[in-house]
């Protein structure tokens, strides 16, 4: 799976055309990358409203929330930055496509197949908050599709503000809002302590709106088809669709646009094998490496919306969903991922700097055989000591991942204590960046 990381991840798509613009899905992902000509034929030109603030009410009615992981209402950020900008006379908008979560591939996929939707959304958000500067922040060097889209839009004069592209360092925290502002300002992509919020005082001290690339694509469609159209799918409290990156046994990762509220079973399977002797699943990971492990016995009723997931201590996050194959060791997977998360601590806050490596070492011990008796209690205590004590949410997300793993893989911990392991396949399942570990200084 790790070897697949540099290849484009395939996505599921439906036939294009008018049906797609009705309630049907996918809304965001055409079958093949769309250049500007195809984009304009399907959607028409960027629907500028002609005045700042005009789109806020539609976005509020739509119920759109941020698709980068935090699910914060988009209209509130738009309104806050527009207000602060009216006082200061300048604002900045950033399309965040850094997607520094190694298991998430959805923004990369979106920027490849529908770059013009993201760029429309960026310009529309810029108009809405009266921006004087716009940026596109990417994890990798920009792909040919995005460069072509920018060039074609330049020729047509579609973009009112020139887009500056900045490449994020390959660090887990590089997409965190304060880290984005630091990096765009020429510094390292390190988080800072808030307040002030970046919506009040961000890049160059200007009020700064940072929206995930997918969020901006949804915004571009809401601007065209209106909030009622947007709400035609999803749940009443969490409308719309979201992009997910799906990992299943014996399958390549797949980017799927799912209606919010879809049963997780539909996306991840029911845990049984493929009928051809392939492994089934033993547990689900929802929300990526800051997410939550769920036991399959809870699976029946869970749907892809935070109201449902919250009952199981989980959240959809940036849409990373994984069904861990039954032939792997959950503890080995967890130890490997948490080792990565510990190495990805910015090292700025004492509890995270001290706690995460200890937690990672404790998990590595559990993943081996015959661990010491106090190791589990140590892990619980260290988890409590790092939670809520960082400038960013890295310790909190890591602890959510760890605590849920200790519960879900409890039986396996007992097996390992007796010197056994139920896994038959030792190949790593969850993807991590190649070339790990990254150097501590490598934040730019």
């Amino acid at each position, binding site marked *: 799976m790790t070897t697949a990381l540099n290849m484009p991840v395939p996505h599921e798509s439906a036939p294009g055309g008018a049906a797609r613009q009705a309630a049907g899905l996918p809304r965001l992902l055409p079958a093949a990358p769309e250049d500007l000509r195809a984009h304009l034929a399907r959607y028409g030109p960027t629907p500028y409203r002609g005045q700042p603030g005009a789109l806020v009410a539609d976005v509020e009615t739509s119920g759109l929330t941020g698709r980068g992981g935090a699910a914060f209402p988009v209209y509130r950020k738009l309104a806050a930055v527009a207000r602060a900008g009216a006082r200061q006379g300048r604002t900045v908008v950033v399309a965040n496509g850094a997607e520094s979560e190694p298991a998430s591939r959805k923004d990369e996929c979106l920027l490849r197949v529908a770059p013009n939707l993201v760029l429309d959304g960026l310009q529309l958000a810029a108009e809405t908050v009266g921006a004087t500067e716009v940026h596109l922040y990417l994890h990798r060097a920009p792909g040919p599709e995005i460069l072509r889209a920018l060039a074609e839009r330049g020729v047509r004069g579609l973009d009112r503000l020139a887009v500056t592209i900045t490449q994020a360092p390959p660090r887990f925290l590089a997409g965190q809002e304060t880290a984005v502002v630091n990096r765009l300002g020429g510094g390292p992509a390190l988080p800072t*302590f808030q307040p002030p919020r970046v919506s009040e005082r961000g890049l160059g001290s200007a009020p700064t709106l940072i929206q995930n690339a997918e969020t901006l694509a949804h915004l571009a469609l809401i601007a065209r088809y209106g909030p009622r159209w947007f709400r035609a799918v999803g749940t009443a409290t969490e409308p719309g669709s979201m992009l997910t990156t799906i990992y299943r046994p014996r399958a390549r990762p797949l980017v799927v646009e799912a209606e919010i509220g879809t049963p997780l079973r539909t996306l991840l399977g029911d845990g049984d094998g493929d009928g051809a002797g392939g492994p089934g699943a033993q547990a689900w990971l929802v929300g990526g490496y800051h997410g939550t492990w769920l036991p399959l016995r809870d699976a029946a009723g869970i749907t892809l919306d935070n109201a449902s997931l919250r009952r199981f201590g989980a959240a959809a996050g940036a849409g990373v969903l994984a069904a861990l194959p039954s032939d792997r060791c959950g503890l080995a997977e967890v130890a490997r991922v948490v080792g990565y998360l510990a190495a990805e601590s910015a090292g700025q806050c004492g509890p995270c700097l*001290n706690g995460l490596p200890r937690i990672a070492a404790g998990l590595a011990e559990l993943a081996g055989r015959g661990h010491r008796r106090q190791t589990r209690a140590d892990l619980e205590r260290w988890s409590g*000591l790092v939670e809520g*004590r960082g*400038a960013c949410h890295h310790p909190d997300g890591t602890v959510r991942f760890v605590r849920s793993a200790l519960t879900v893989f409890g039986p396996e911990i007992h097996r390992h204590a007796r010197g056994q392991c139920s896994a038959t396949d030792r190949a790593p399942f969850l993807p991590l960046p190649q070339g790990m570990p990254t150097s501590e200084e490598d934040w730019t």
Partner: protein
Amino acid sequence: MAETLRVNPITCAGHGVCAELLPELVTLDEWGYPIVDPGPVPPALDRGARRAVAGCPALALKLLRS
């Protein structure tokens, strides 16, 4: 107006002065970093809290209006 103590975890270097000056509201974790009572500072501890804020060598401890 009630105030609460807050640590900037990036500037905090774990000197531990706050826990010495204000043990009623600040304890140290096993690595020497402060764990601060999240509630409002009681009036009786107001002076102590101000001394702890003033005494932090890293200027990492703040009193915030809650």
